[in-house]
């Protein structure tokens, strides 16, 4: 019997290695796997490359992980926001590496990794600072830059419901980066609020099929602090 459900956050995060690239789902706090990030802090892996839309806020979650010196590099689209104090300081002091990626390019690079596409072309960022050092090419008279797949060792995602095969549904805008990140990592770990019996989830509504999911853990999160 396939059973991807584990009993604790610690069990879900077992084996994450130093030096890993870790994808972290969510947009704002919606769909953000807070408990798994806390679990990663506990788990201890260091020298991480983290991929998330933001560079953390306050002193919790991803920001805390950075503050503890466990993040070597962050890949994101929007590093500076109101509460990104930890990132700001580490960055100023040269203690963290940053790769800025347009949000759509970031999503597409992960989708490409999941879909077996090593590289693709996009018009996004052509003629801007972010195209520097990127290969440029013209198709039908328009300029594009080449972008590479962004593959990861681990993805931490938040879903709404899951079953023991690892099938996942999302709640409204909680979907965001999560299904894309689930495709792009060797080990995708999902936290969800509800465990359902196999067959309870509509086969038309499963947004992340279990094929992309390694472990599922149920947490009592409640609503995101939006």
């Amino acid at each position, binding site marked *: 019997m396939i059973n991807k459900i584990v009993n604790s956050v610690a069990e879900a995060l077992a084996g994450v290695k130093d030096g890993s690239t870790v994808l972290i789902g969510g947009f704002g706090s*919606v769909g953000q796997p807070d408990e798994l990030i806390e679990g990663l802090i506990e788990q201890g892996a260091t020298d991480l490359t983290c991929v998330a839309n933001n560079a953390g806020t306050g002193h919790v979650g991803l920001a805390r992980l950075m503050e503890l010196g466990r993040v070597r590099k962050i890949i994101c*689209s929007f590093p500076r926001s109101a509460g990104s104090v930890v990132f700001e300081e580490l960055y100023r002091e040269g203690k963290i590496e940053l790769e800025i990626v347009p949000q*759509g390019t970031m999503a597409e690079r992960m989708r490409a990794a999941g879909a077996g596409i090593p590289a693709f072309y996009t018009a*996004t960022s*052509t*003629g801007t*600072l972010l195209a520097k050092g990127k290969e440029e090419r013209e198709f039908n008279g328009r300029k594009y830059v080449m972008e590479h797949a962004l593959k990861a060792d681990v993805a931490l995602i938040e879903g709404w419901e899951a079953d023991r095969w690892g099938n996942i549904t999302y709640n409204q805008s909680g979907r965001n*980066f999560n299904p894309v990140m689930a495709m792009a990592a060797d080990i995708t770990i999902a936290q969800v609020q509800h465990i359902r019996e196999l067959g309870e989830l509509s086969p038309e509504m499963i947004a992340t099929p279990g094929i992309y999911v390694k472990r599922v853990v149920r947490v009592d999160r409640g609503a995101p602090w*939006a």
Partner: protein
Amino acid sequence: MQPFSRAQMAAKAAADIPEGWVVNLGIGIPTLIADHVPLEREVIFQSENGVLGMGPAPEKGREDPWLINAGKQMVTLRPGGSFCHHADSFAMIRGGHIDLCVLGGFEVAENGDLANWATSENDTAPAVGGAMDLGVGAKQLWVVMEHTTKDGRPKIVERCGYPLTAPGNVRRVYTNLAVLDIEPGLGFVVRDIAPGISLEELQAKSAAKLHTRS
């Protein structure tokens, strides 16, 4: 001189959006535009975090924290709305399926260039978000911004001095002093002007030639 208020700028942009368009609104004043489009004129608002068909802000007590827009504000979903993931959402944006994107701006140039994400080449950690994707992907861009900076420097320019967000895609600018079209090959054309401002005054506050329709 009676400059347009932020609400007036938003209302003017809202009035110009035809029914049936799919529209992405940037953070800041652009977000206000949705409030000025009556529900019966069906405009489909898209948010890059995978929400298509956003409705007005939720009534007090009926907020749903699982349903937010790109500015992380709680919103509602209209009947007919749908959800998708980030790659599918940006496929809509980058694939040319969004009729209009309205963004804020640092500078807009007469060739349609937009700068709105970094104020200097030396800023090594600027936040780009989805601006570059929207900048090149939407069928057209409108920009809503103050006509000048706080210290009076024109934001309407011949060529952008700030790092570009996207080249050549701005078609209209709503400022507190005027509404300007950008006609390819010509440049800025005055479409509307705030009460009590002369064309000469407007030109003086702009660093690019303003044309008028004859």
